[in-house]
């Protein structure tokens, strides 16, 4: 057991997999000699060499496309998008080639795509997005989004060892802000939800960085017993855990950082409306980013991203319902 930051946990998982399985290789822009824009692969090239920690051309479609080709002949590529926003340039390969391959041809595509996501640091419209819902809407791609250091490592092991394309949403804002105890060696975190805090009056459902916003906002909310459910995985979505929390608490706030329309939170809301109508004691409440590009200037960015105060307000309103 070691205390690691979220970023160190991701690095540790990658290092363990490179040591454990010679089929694993890292591909991405500036990940080798430079060690990655966020230094996730810092020092890797010295240990594993330039073939396995590959500095690629600036070509996201090619990173995903060649990873697919390498995967179907036996490799286990882990692609880094320098920022999750850039997956837009590799979207076609991921959605049309990788995502539909197994259904069409029975051919598994074991690739992991690491997507440094999220805002909160003036990254502006092209370095702050949360594109997870793009892939939730496209069959054949798994999507995981860890909130803790332990899950960052465990879910990354699970992603790399999965026979399918997996989008690993790593939240940039958590990289150096979150620390935690992480078990040594390879342990896989299941792609299921986790109760981050038990409660009974209301449940906040969140994932990624928003789990921490939810915990902070509800730590002391006028004495209410608030549960926080950390989804961890968006595809597959842990329907059972979601419905269990709703049945227990009867009031639900769904929190996500992505733009509101058709977001992961919208899917969770639809699920609850369909399957837990009778359990509800109030309207399903959503807190998310409005449908605007993420602005650059701090007061503008803070105005759109969900924060502790907005979550408190939403919870209070629902508790009083």
């Amino acid at each position, binding site marked *: 057991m070691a205390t690691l930051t979220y970023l160190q946990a991701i690095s540790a998982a990658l290092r363990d997999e490179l040591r454990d399985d010679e089929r694993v290789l890292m591909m991405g822009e500036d990940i080798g000699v430079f060690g990655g824009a966020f230094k996730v692969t810092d020092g890797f090239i010295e240990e594993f060499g330039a073939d396995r920690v590959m500095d690629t051309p600036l070509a996201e479609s*090619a990173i995903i496309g060649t990873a697919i*080709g390498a995967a179907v002949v036996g*490799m286990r590529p882990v692609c880094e998008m320098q920022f999750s926003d850039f997956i837009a340039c590799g979207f076609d390969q991921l959605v049309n*080639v990788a995502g539909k391959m197994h259904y069409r041809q029975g*051919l598994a595509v074991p690739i992991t795509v690491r997507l440094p996501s999220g805002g909160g640091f003036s990254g502006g419209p092209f370095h702050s997005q949360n594109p997870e819902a793009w892939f939730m809407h496209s069959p054949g791609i798994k999507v995981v989004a860890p909130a803790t250091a332990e899950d960052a490592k465990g879910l990354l092991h699970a992603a790399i060892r999965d026979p399918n394309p997996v989008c690993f949403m790593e939240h940039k804002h958590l990289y150096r802000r979150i620390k935690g105890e992480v078990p040594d060696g390879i342990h896989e975190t299941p792609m299921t939800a986790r109760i981050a805090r038990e409660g009974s009056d209301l449940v906040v459902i969140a994932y990624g960085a928003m789990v921490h916003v939810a915990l902070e906002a509800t730590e002391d909310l006028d004495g209410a017993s608030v549960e926080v459910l950390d989804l961890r995985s968006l595809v597959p979505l842990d329907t059972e855990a979601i419905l269990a929390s709703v049945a227990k608490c009867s009031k639900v706030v769904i929190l996500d950082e992505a733009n509101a329309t058709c977001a992961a939170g919208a899917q969770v809301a639809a699920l609850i409306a369909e399957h837990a109508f009778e359990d509800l004691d109030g309207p399903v409440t959503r807190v998310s980013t409005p449908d605007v590009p993420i602005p650059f200037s701090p007061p503008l960015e803070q105005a759109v991203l969900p924060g502790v105060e907005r979550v408190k307000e939403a919870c209070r309103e629902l508790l009083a319902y």
Partner: protein
Amino acid sequence: MATQTAQQAQAGSHLLPEDRAALLRAMLLMRGLEERAMSLYRQGKVPGSFYDGYGQEAVSAGAAFAMAPADRLCVLHRDLAAHVIRGVPPARILAQYLGRATGVTRGRDGNVHFGDRHLGCVGMVSMLPDMMLVATGMAMAFKLRGERRCAITWFGDGSTSRGDFHEAMNWAGVQKLPVVFVLENNQYAYSTPLDKQFAVDPVERAAAYGFSGVTVDGNDAEAMFEATRAARERAISGQGPTLIEAVTMRMHGHAAHDDMKYVPKEQVEEWRKRDPIDRQEARVTGAGGDVEAIRGSVRAEIDAAAEEALAAPMPDPAGAAEGVFGVGEAEPLGDGLAPWSGFATGAPEGVS
């Protein structure tokens, strides 16, 4: 960088008489299967649309014939002969068109959108030329592991306008990968002629990416074979990729609904004189082969395949949502057949 000519590529054949007959047979199977599928389409038995490669048979037959069992192929929609050569049974091909449970994709995808993963092939997607990158990635893995194998992919003239063409050519050039790019220049991308597609013949671009480009008569199966064999040798001996531009003509419409009104009739008639099957038949006859016997056996094979495919069940609707995700250990592509005599006698990689 020098552009190799078709004549150079043809100098000194590596084909025995039985290879010539096998090439003819693959082309006849392709044409016969597609004609049968078209007829089934006209009868309303093939759902969706129908695409064929009439007149382009030499491009896939010649190039695929140069591939060894351990090589990997990303095959385009006018390249049915590649599937035939790798060993996909004709009944399975017709069942694929018919959307049957016994088709290669079990009704999940239609037409020539298939690859038999057990035979080293990955089926195309409609976004062209996405498969150039997949083939490049296969080649990257072969190089990283130090294996003497190559990947090959086919794509059309229209594909050269899209970014993935550039990304694949550049990546393969930078990493000097064992990949063979076959540009199937059939004069039209749907209705768009070459002069609206590019200002410079794409074969010239190969030099800009740091490797060779060669123009080949795409209606000559043996020229295609020789050029691809040479490209494969370069690939597996560490000399990097090759772009082969196969010049041919799409003799039918883009798909069955397309009347080709945008193509001058004289152009079609001119190309009809250069039919790749007529050419290969003349070669086989010249070498003492019995073309009629080959034609007869191909006809019988297609008749039997059609009967089998038409009797095959439709897929069970209850299974429509199954198989989206893989479960358990991912199984990589398997090896395909490689009927060229050069592979039967030579080293594992089969290079003479």
